[in-house]
């Protein structure tokens, strides 16, 4: 075999701590290596051309590039060798940047390690075989999980692109957090005025099927051919019959039900419609508070309903939706501020969250847009905003910046002044994070035009004094302790991963970080892809985001799906399991362990044998390590390929002499 080896400098990224020329020289001594060299940037155009030229000049059978992580550039170089006429799987990569040059400073050790890593890549390549991808059909339907603004945008863009869309929303209405907002920064335009039409579009779009009050139960299949089980939770109202007239909600005698939409600052009726612009505008019953369901009395709504839509005996129902791609847009939840005992831990009625304040500000909220204190209904004069409650705080395991709090607080300060011209706002902040278009100007306006008093420092404690609250903080710029007598305190609570996010990630087989935010495929270059083909991300499920970013991601994810579906057939990854029929004894152990049901039993001249359904196989290799006969081999990660790597490391003297 004739192998070409290219050791990349990556500028000084690798060459700074690895003697790349030495590595090329040492690896060049290996038996199958016909050509070995170092190259400045292997991935650059001249770098790739150099590889192609060498393949031609030296008639190479395969290529090893020792550079960065294969998770980054393996596809790049596979295309390169393909351009030179080789099969793309006659290529191996050694990671001498992330795994060598960036994590150690000792040049001698690094160089030796790079030699070893390149050597195992060469060893593996000697066992590589050309692989040819197969094609399979695509179900051009997409599921969007989460009906916040990111999910709505993704759903609409996909639907407008001609795709059938299934939108699954956990709560009774789409709209997400944005629907709860009164105004949006930095334009102070009405949230429902810009979101409302989009919600209506979702309801009316012929290509969109909406499941509200529903959750994803399980996900099977693979890109192009997923099967998602969606659990439609019982609403106790037949939504095909319900017209959303609202008569039931007016007459329901149980009025103490938790009002989740209004962030619990008010109560609602047991049968309710979340808010006037809800989509779908359908009533649903909270069984915890329904007198009929809990005590078998009442039944008023059933009697009144003009369309006879009430179903007290409704059960959850599961539907199976076959789709070809999935967009996760599950958003975020708010940090539980009651963990801050020094802010009262939830004991003070006039210390509220920023989202509760949005509901207070909202004309359609429980206070009809008049700012009043929850405790006594009085108009506040001094309103204090406390930033970074559950953000940038290691002591509560939330070291990250939630990103949008600075902006909405500025907006709320402006709105406070608009609503109550005699009021005075104070904002305790650590740093103002306003790196968007017109954002910093906006926070400046809050201070310059609306007189918000910004105080740089955290708040150490809030405690009641009479009917006011003493907010004691620091003004670190003045170098002193300060106190404000507040009538209302608004905590800018941080964003955290939506409850149940990790659970869904496990169903989707995508990764999540320690806080539960979903991992994108590449931080910069693949921001809406995941490592699971056919699953995309949009919005705050990937990390806290404001509305423009969420919308952008919704569109980005939609464009990725549209791109994926632009082909009628997808190429399957040929790195799948393959059965050696001679060796197979038909015991079916592989069938038992395959996580995807990708192996079936077939009859071969009267003998049972295993057979791999190539489009279903995901290439995990569990079967290969299950089969004692070695009869089923995961292509490109065969026993022989891995053994070659192990042998390359173990069956040679530990220290190869450099001399």
């Amino acid at each position: 075999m004739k192998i070409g080896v290219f050791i990349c400098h990556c500028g000084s990224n690798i060459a700074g701590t690895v003697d790349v020329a030495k590595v090329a020289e040492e690896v060049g001594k290996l038996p199958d290596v016909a050509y070995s060299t170092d190259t400045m940037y292997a991935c650059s155009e001249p770098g790739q051309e150099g590889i192609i030229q060498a393949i031609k000049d030296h008639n190479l059978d395969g290529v090893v590039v020792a550079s960065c992580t294969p998770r980054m550039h393996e596809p790049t170089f596979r295309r390169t060798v393909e351009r030179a006429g080789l099969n793309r799987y006659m290529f191996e990569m050694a990671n001498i940047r992330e795994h060598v040059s960036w994590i150690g400073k000792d040049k001698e050790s690094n160089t030796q390690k790079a030699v070893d890593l390149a050597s195992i890549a060469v060893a593996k390549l000697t066992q590589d075989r050309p692989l040819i991808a197969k094609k399979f059909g695509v179900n051009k339907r997409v599921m969007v999980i989460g009906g916040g603004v990111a999910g709505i945008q993704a759903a609409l863009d996909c639907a407008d692109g001609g795709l059938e869309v299934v939108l699954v929303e956990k709560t009774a209405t789409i709209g997400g957090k944005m629907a709860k907002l009164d105004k949006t920064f930095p334009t102070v335009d009405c949230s429902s005025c810009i979101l409302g039409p989009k919600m209506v579009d979702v309801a009316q779009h012929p290509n969109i099927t909406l499941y509200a009050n529903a959750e994803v139960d399980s996900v099977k299949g693979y890109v192009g051919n997923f099967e998602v089980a969606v659990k439609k939770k019982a609403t106790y109202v037949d939504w095909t019959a319900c017209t959303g007239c609202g008569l039931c909600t007016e007459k329901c005698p149980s009025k103490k039900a938790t009002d989740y939409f209004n962030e619990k600052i008010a109560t609602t009726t047991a049968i309710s419609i979340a808010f006037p612009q809800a989509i779908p505008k359908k009533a649903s019953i909270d069984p915890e508070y329904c007198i009929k369901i809990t005590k078998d009395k009442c039944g008023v709504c059933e009697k009144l309903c003009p369309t006879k839509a009430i179903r007290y005996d409704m059960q959850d129902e599961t539907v199976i939706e076959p789709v070809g791609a999935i967009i996760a847009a599950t958003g975020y939840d708010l940090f539980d501020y009651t963990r801050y005992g020094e802010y009262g831990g939830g004991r003070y009625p006039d210390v509220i969250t920023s989202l509760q304040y949005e509901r207070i500000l909202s004309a359609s909220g429980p206070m009809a847009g008049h700012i009043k204190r929850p405790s006594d209904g009085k108009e506040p004069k001094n309103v204090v905003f406390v930033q970074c409650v559950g953000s940038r705080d290691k002591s509560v395991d939330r070291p990250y910046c939630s990103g949008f709090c600075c902006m909405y607080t500025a907006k709320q300060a402006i709105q406070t002044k608009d609503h109550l011209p005699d009021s005075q706002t104070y904002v305790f902040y650590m740093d103002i994070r306003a790196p968007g278009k017109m954002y910093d100007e906006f926070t400046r306006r809050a201070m310059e035009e609306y007189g918000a008093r910004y105080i740089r420092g955290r708040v150490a404690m809030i405690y009641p004094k009479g009917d006011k609250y003493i907010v004691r903080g620091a003004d670190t710029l003045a170098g002193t302790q300060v106190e404000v007598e507040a009538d209302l305190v608004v905590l800018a609570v941080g964003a955290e991963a939506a409850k149940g996010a990790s659970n869904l990630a496990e169903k989707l087989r995508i990764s999540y970080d320690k806080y539960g935010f979903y991992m994108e495929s590449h931080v910069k270059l693949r921001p809406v892809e995941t490592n699971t083909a056919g699953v995309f991300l949009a919005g705050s499920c990937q990390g806290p985001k404001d509305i423009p970013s969420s919308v952008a991601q919704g569109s980005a994810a939609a464009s990725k799906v549209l791109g994926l579906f632009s082909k009628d057939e997808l190429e399957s990854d040929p790195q799948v399991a393959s059965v050696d029929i001679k060796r197979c004894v038909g015991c079916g152990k592989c069938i038992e362990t395959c996580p995807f049901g990708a192996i079936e039993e077939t009859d071969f001249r009267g003998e049972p044998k295993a057979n791999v359904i190539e489009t279903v196989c995901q290439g995990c290799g569990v079967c290969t390590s299950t089969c004692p006969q070695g009869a089923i081999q995961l292509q490109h990660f065969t026993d022989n390929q891995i053994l070659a790597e192990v042998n390359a490391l173990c069956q040679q003297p530990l220290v190869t002499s450099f001399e």
Partner: protein
Amino acid sequence: MSAAPGNELRIIGFLCNWCSYGGADTAGVGRMTQPTDLRIIRVPCSGRIDPLFVLKALVNGADGVLVSGCHPRDCHYAEGNFYARRRLEVLKRFLQVLGIDERRFEYTWVSASEGQRWQEVVQKFTERIHELGPAPKITPDQMAMAETMAAQPR
């Protein structure tokens, strides 16, 4: 306790592509310094790892073998690491009668976001292997090889 050059021990890592290999990349991107002894072999999933690969390495002179996969419940292939956990646990205990110190083998879970955790794992495992020292040369031919190597001019 990064080994001094020339004082390195032979440590082999089998890492799943999606989580732990990514975690090692994350550690690299974060320039999290680690001992240099470890050589990583990339496999698609911890479920791909036949325990015999580990034994093959240990029998043939590896001083330590580290396997790392996705955290249970978070396998890219849904179930691979669940199988791996059972196999590797049995393997670890099997070592107790093979005359191979079971501390020379460890398996763990590191996600793609856990660069720092990866750094800690490598640090800890490398330290452990250095405390144990080079693996005893269990077979005469290995002893012979060790002698040849020792005689080699450095």
